[in-house]
């Protein structure tokens, strides 16, 4: 992403703040070489800190969820294609009204896996390698140079295939080992724009369906539940994986479910705000060969 995109963003932000369209612009602020941080720009000066770059990793739509939304009324947000998909889900799940958000869409050529990395074939985030929304599915204005979607290099899918090729016992042991590392800090939940529940199921104590101890069994229960609650909703921004201090490959769980949703129901979340929820609708013809 280019100089001009950054300039466009700053210009747009200044304009929107000046003409009172919005009271705040949520975007990426420059934080040194190959680093950005989320910033809430309320003044022209702050607007001039905005940047767009391959280090714009955060999915800022998390700040549109009720608990984190900085103000009522209309908010402008800088969003890449994957971020906008999350926004579409938030709209379809009645979390925010279209008219309450002004989307500065970013035509995105991909971002890096972690902060501080220069962009290269090695450092480009896995999710970007087969991105389907380099141009966001929805926006009020678009910045950045529109670029061709990449030839899908199914890095994640290949990893998933490897795991699926294991025996059930191997799969179980693989995940038991990975999930044993979980510290139950719930960073995966906190960074997820779609984990906006007022009270997460794991914080409900009557009954305590999921134990809060970081025991292997409770960690499995928690991670299964987290993944399932995102079934047909997760847009694959992978913020959960980036935030995980234990380095658990959460993207595999999410993506495997997304693949199932696509295979079984031809469902791709976060494209059309009017589309019915995958878990929340049904089709008489839904497959059921596994049901005796």
């Amino acid at each position, binding site marked *: 992403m280019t100089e001009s995109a950054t300039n466009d963003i700053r210009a747009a932000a200044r304009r929107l703040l000046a003409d009172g369209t919005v009271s705040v612009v949520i975007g990426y602020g420059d*934080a*040194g070489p190959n*680093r*950005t*941080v*989320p*910033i*809430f720009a309320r003044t022209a000066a702050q607007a001039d800190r905005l940047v767009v770059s391959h280090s714009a990793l*955060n999915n800022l739509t*998390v*700040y549109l969820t009720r608990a*984190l939304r*900085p103000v009522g009324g209309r908010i402008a947000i800088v969003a890449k294609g994957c971020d906008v998909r999350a926004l579409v889900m938030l709209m379809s799940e009645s979390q925010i009204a279209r008219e309450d958000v002004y989307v500065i869409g970013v035509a995105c050529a991909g971002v890096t896996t972690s*902060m501080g990395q220069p962009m290269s074939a090695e450092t480009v985030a896995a999710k970007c390698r087969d991105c389907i929304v380099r141009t966001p599915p929805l926006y009020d204005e678009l910045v950045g140079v529109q670029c061709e979607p990449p030839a899908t290099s199914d890095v994640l899918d290949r990893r998933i295939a490897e795991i699926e090729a294991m025996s059930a016992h191997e799969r179980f042991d693989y995940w038991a080992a990975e999930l044993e*590392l979980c*510290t*139950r*800090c*719930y*960073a995966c*939940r*906190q*960074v997820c724009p779609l984990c906006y529940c007022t009270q997460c199921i794991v*914080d409900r104590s009557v009954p*305590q369906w999921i*134990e*809060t*101890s*970081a*025991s292997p069994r409770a960690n499995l229960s928690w991670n299964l539940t987290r993944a399932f609650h995102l079934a047909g909703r997760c847009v694959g921004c992978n*913020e959960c994986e*980036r*935030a995980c*201090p*234990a*380095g658990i490959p959460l993207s595999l769980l999410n993506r495997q479910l997304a693949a199932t949703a696509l295979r079984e129901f031809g469902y791709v979340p976060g494209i059309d705000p009017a589309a019915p929820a995958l878990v929340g609708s049904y089709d008489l013809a839904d497959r059921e060969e596994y049901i005796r």
Partner: protein
Amino acid sequence: MNEYRITQESLQAFVAALVADGLTVLAEAADGSGYARLAADDRVAIDPSRAPSRLSMKEHFFPKSEALFEYRREDGGFVLVDRLPEVRPTVILGARPCDAASIGILSKVFNWDYRDEFFNRRVDATIVIGMLCAYRDEHCFCTSVGGAPDSIAGSDLFLVPLNDGALGMRVVSDDGERFVTAYAHLFEWGAPGDPLQVDEALTLPSVRFDAEKVRGWIEGHFDDPYWSAASETCLGCARCAFACPVCHCFDIVDEDRTYGSGERMRNWDACQFGMFTKHASGHNPRAARAQRYRQRISHKFAYYPSRFGEVLCTGCGRCTRGCPVGIDIGAIAVEIGGMAS
């Protein structure tokens, strides 16, 4: 003073011997995840310029989850069964000073109004072999909180890289002395070799803020609007607290394992969670993110120092490196220090 000279070979032999003697040997894992257990034949690499792991070595003394006791329903009542940890003698190899320092800081709270058996047993059974730290990045600030890359605080033995690639191991505590004699035969003893002549390794990172000033400002600014501004982008994920070598809050829950028996668990918790201070009544004295963020900073730089005379921070920078929204605790301390003067 004299010191042991350790070559790569003797280091390998050392670890093999420790494991053979049934000791648990922990060292920062190559994948950067945290301090992991070494097997006898693992290749041991002491690299003073390696970046700190994602998680600290706190977990070894204060596990993310541990059972305090078991309970079992028996004829109308409950039978309680103690579950003191079975602790193996342990060696932490190559602890960086900002980690080693955490033991002393944590000991204060775990031996304050109540002496915590679980923590102390583990500390007592552990020999810490510290390591001169040659890593620097913009997130390190050990020197601003009373530490240093060559600080021996918390170590029993201390490794210093020598310019010929070998390591010098200094004895810095009586425990260290007692411990090392059993393995002395593995090492060369004598005059120190030339310490590694790398300026970067020995120049101290500059002091970024005055912790005393920070404390002063915090104590006078409980209701300052700064707290909302500073925490505006915080997601409350508490990854910082879980990665921190000295954050030590925990939650206690009873968990049934079977119908009629279970365990009382102590699990890591963090002041960044909304639930952390939520009362049964539903009232929450720290309902807002800003209040929780203020608590985190105030506890580290004001409350803890006032009670224990130590800043609840070793300047390791893990919280900042791991923060998904790039909140920089060092920068915040600098900012507060600035506001103070």
